[in-house]
């Protein structure tokens, strides 16, 4: 678990969300943004390279399946391209990007109507080339991991859209409450309430699963 937390911290560092160690990354990112704003297509491509992983994974976690995440991530970059002219260079690009991701995912969730069944990472992996298995990994361990992931996705599915967005950004993307509040356009108090409720629901779901497992 600590390694995953470190991974999340590393990912947020590359987005310039942490102040201590991310200064060079933030600086390069800001110069890249400025070049892209000036209309440099190569800079925009670099911008996609830098952020596509993050955008895809966040969208996937928010929407719960590959197709929607893929469409949403594309829409995110289209909006970035469209509204980059309106971005103020002194602002935090990562926070701005997160706001777009949240809005696009919300729109997608609204469009698709009632939430459909989550496809597990494993099934996504089977039917697409989107995610690949690291070579040499133990098949059994992977199966256990995949099962656990599916359970976690089902647990996330019990949350409302807002709770899900808050918990994904706070607990899985590793943003601070303040950053989450900015990305969601809510107050910190509202975000805390959503996070608290989401954590309680996830715990309840996990408890139910554990009970069922013990009985079975």
């Amino acid at each position, binding site marked *: 678990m600590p390694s995953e937390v470190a991974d999340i911290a590393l990912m947020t560092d590359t987005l310039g969300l942490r102040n201590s160690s991310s200064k060079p990354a933030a600086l390069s990112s800001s110069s890249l943004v400025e070049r892209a704003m000036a209309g440099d297509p190569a800079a925009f491509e670099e911008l996609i390279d830098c952020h*596509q*992983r993050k955008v895809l994974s966040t969208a996937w976690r928010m929407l719960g399946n590959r197709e929607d995440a*893929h469409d949403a991530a*594309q829409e995110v970059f*289209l909006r970035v*391209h469209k509204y980059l002219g309106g971005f103020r260079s002194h602002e935090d690009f990562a926070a701005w990007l997160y706001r777009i991701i949240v809005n696009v995912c919300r729109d997608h969730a609204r469009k698709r109507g009632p939430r459909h069944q989550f496809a597990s990472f494993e099934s996504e992996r089977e039917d697409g080339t989107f995610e690949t298995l690291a070579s040499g990994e133990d098949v059994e361990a992977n199966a256990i991991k995949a099962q656990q992931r599916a359970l*976690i996705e089902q647990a996330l599915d019990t949350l409302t859209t807002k709770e899900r967005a808050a918990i994904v950004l706070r607990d*899985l993307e590793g943003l601070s409450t303040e950053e989450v509040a900015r990305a969601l356009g809510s107050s910190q108090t509202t975000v805390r309430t959503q996070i*608290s409720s989401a954590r*309680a629901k996830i715990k309840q779901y996990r408890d139910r699963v554990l009970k069922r497992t013990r009985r079975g």
Partner: protein
Amino acid sequence: MKCRRVEKLIPLYVERDLESGIADRISSHLDWCGRCNWLADEYRESQSWLRSSAAPEFDAAALNAFKAGVLSRIAETSAKPSLIANLLQHLNRRQVLALSTAVLVVLGMVVLYVYQMRAKLGGPTPQIVESSPGIESGPAGIDEKPIQANSDKRRDSPKRRVYRGIRNSRTALARRRAAQTDGRDRATVARASLPTLNSNGFSATPAMLRIEIQTSDPNIRIIWFAPKETDSHQIKPATD
């Protein structure tokens, strides 16, 4: 701090989402309360379980395909210029200037026209009508003052309009009652006192000059009587 309150705050406490003062109080509560301590451990495990789902990984080929897809969509979008951009492409600077001026002029005319229409329709300007009034002047005791257009314009608030409506309906009722109690036939009275009006809305009887003004409010009709011999500048409303 009571257990009930701590239980509510534990989901935030386990991830250090609380202010330090509250977090310290919860910590000291957890030191002696076994049940809440157990609950905090449960939440910690649940959070670890949630985080055990690592971020999905994407291989280079998939990412390249994704990037190509984004770039092609951007190219499609920028290849399809908007209608205005399309129009502007075919016009030079002078034409654009002329077109925008023409559009501004047309817009200005439309605004003027709308403004005039609204002034015509909305204004409570009294108008002189040539129709037969049907109702005689009010009985004695009912105070009827001529309505001035300008003061109405200034004071035409919704509250005032409601008040005026009530006042007018009361006046009309009083008139009707008075006419009934008098036992007079209103039509006869109107015929007797009102010969045909000329185009200016003035009518002349042998004794009196009658001026009838219909305001925009159908309930308000202003009727002036004046001695025929008097000068038009000295016309005063009838008090009878």
